[in-house]
């Protein structure tokens, strides 16, 4: 049994906002094994973005600690090697690329930062990376404005892969994409993970996506970990009422899905008559 790649141990995070404390995360513990896809399910206010921020080192936990490969990691003063190892794919591909840099320049950025080889070696790597994410190599000189949402997301993925990371944090990577594009990007992400043996921390609100790609699932609500387990368990016998309610609320398109969902519908429906607080 290998050691986990990443562990989050009893982590809490509070922010100060308008004079009072906001408890974004309370006493959360999860782990990610090397090469596994661990999904984080949560709606707004669940703390999933805060979790991503802590793992990426954007800020420090208020309590608890985070370990990567067994060693405790801190926030903003991370060694470059650690920064390389954990990369981010963001939700909004439009914002994720610098509009004033070409595709090639964006993908080459990590290579420049980490001083990988000489100029021609880096250019070659960029070409390989573009091919890996399914983009034509002549895109190197295009600006993001000329690209569609799906293409921009692929460039962002290529840039993340240029770091040769071990863990990808994906924060709603396909939520802003059209249906057909979403499917293609999910296929790409699955293929890349298989080929490179990467671990994914896949943050989303979309349970249907999770069922298809995750090995393990953790459900968050209002900053707390509600339940965690193998994907199969969560989808056949979820323990918490919140998870059941989530499963029962999702719009579906096939009869089979509707039947699957029916088991959880009672939990969902009892909520429908409640007024908002």
């Amino acid at each position, binding site marked *: 049994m290998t050691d986990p790649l990443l562990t989050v141990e009893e982590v809490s995070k509070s922010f100060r906002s308008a004079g009072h404390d906001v408890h974004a995360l309370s006493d959360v513990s999860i782990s990610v094994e090397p090469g596994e896809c661990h999904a984080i399910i949560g709606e707004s206010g669940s703390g999933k973005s805060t979790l991503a921020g802590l793992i990426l080192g954007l800020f420090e936990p208020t309590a608890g600690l985070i370990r990567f490969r067994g060693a405790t990691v801190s926030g903003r003063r991370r060694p470059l090697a650690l920064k390389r190892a954990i990369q981010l794919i963001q939700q909004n591909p439009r914002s994720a690329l610098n509009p004033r840099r070409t595709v090639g320049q964006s993908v080459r950025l990590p290579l420049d930062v980490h001083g990988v080889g000489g100029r021609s070696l880096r250019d070659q790597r960029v070409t390989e990376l573009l091919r890996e994410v399914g983009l034509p190599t002549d895109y190197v000189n295009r600006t993001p404005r000329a690209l569609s949402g799906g293409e921009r997301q692929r460039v962002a993925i290529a840039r993340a892969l240029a770091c040769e990371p071990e863990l990808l944090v994906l924060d709603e990577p396909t939520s802003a994409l059209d249906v057909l594009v979403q499917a293609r990007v999910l296929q790409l992400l699955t293929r890349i993970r298989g080929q490179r043996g990467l671990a994914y921390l896949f943050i989303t609100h979309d349970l249907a996506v999770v069922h298809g790609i995750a090995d393990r699932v953790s459900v968050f609500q209002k900053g707390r970990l509600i339940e965690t387990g193998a994907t199969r368990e969560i989808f056949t016998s979820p323990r918490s009422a919140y998870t059941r309610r989530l499963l029962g609320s*999702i719009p579906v398109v096939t009869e089979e899905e509707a039947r*699957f969902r029916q088991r959880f519908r009672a939990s969902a429906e009892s909520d429908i008559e409640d007024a908002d607080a």
Partner: protein
Amino acid sequence: MSAADVLVDGRSRDVVLAVRDLRVAFPGARGPVEALRGVSIHVRRGEKVALVGESGSGKSTIARLVLGLLQNEGARIAGSVRLGGHEILGDESAIRVARGDRVAMIFQDAVSALNPTFTIGDQFREVLRRRDPAISRSDAGRRARAALADVHLHEPDRVLSSYVFQLSGGMSQRVMISLALANDPELLVADEPGSSLDVTVQARTLHLMNDLIGRHGTSVLFISHNLGVVREFADRVYVIYRGGIVEHATAAQLFANARHPYTRALLAAIPKLDQATVPDAPETRPDFADPLIEHPGCSEPHLVAA
């Protein structure tokens, strides 16, 4: 009232919205860009009709056009849009009169659609005055409170004196719905309703909207990219691809037996809740642009022989 009644009784059911051969082109860097290429759709009284497509399909253009909200100088528009029998295309005053009164719109994101500098109560008064310019403050207040109760907001006075940013996402969505229905419009146009909300909140909100619409007998044209939502709430569905309608069916027909290659690709690409697999990712194929497929009983009224 089921979809079947609409069809059998086709000719005698009022057509609330009739769009015929609508063409819209916008000026572009390299010549005009066609956003809509001869689109015909209709909505009958009491029906909930969905327009489904991806981004760039033209679905939002139609919604904005119906409400006269298309803000693009230089747009070339041809065709016919009749609201309750009156042609509104090209007729600024007709649209203005109808808007807020006979036709209302709800948007994807309530917080940005509602005016942040007015209280909810102020906005209700403004909306109610469109139907009844002389309405008194107390009458307006009474009707506003009733409208809020309809959307299950149980502290109406607090809500009426609040500003949008003081309400939660779900609450402001409900406020937006109740504002839209305050004047009992014939037609409600909903642009991606609830898509900015959490799934559980969205489910609640849409269920509520469905109830209200049923009670008022409002017709609905709703625009969505989310086929799951469409399946739950629409009677009839148009699938739009690159400015043209490619499939027209009742919701039941479409989800049991989609026939157009584009629709089938869309349905295949959606991740399925009950399956532990990554969905199909079909490449864009030429047959996505195949001509319109109409399911039995689904055709445009102006094309059906009298």
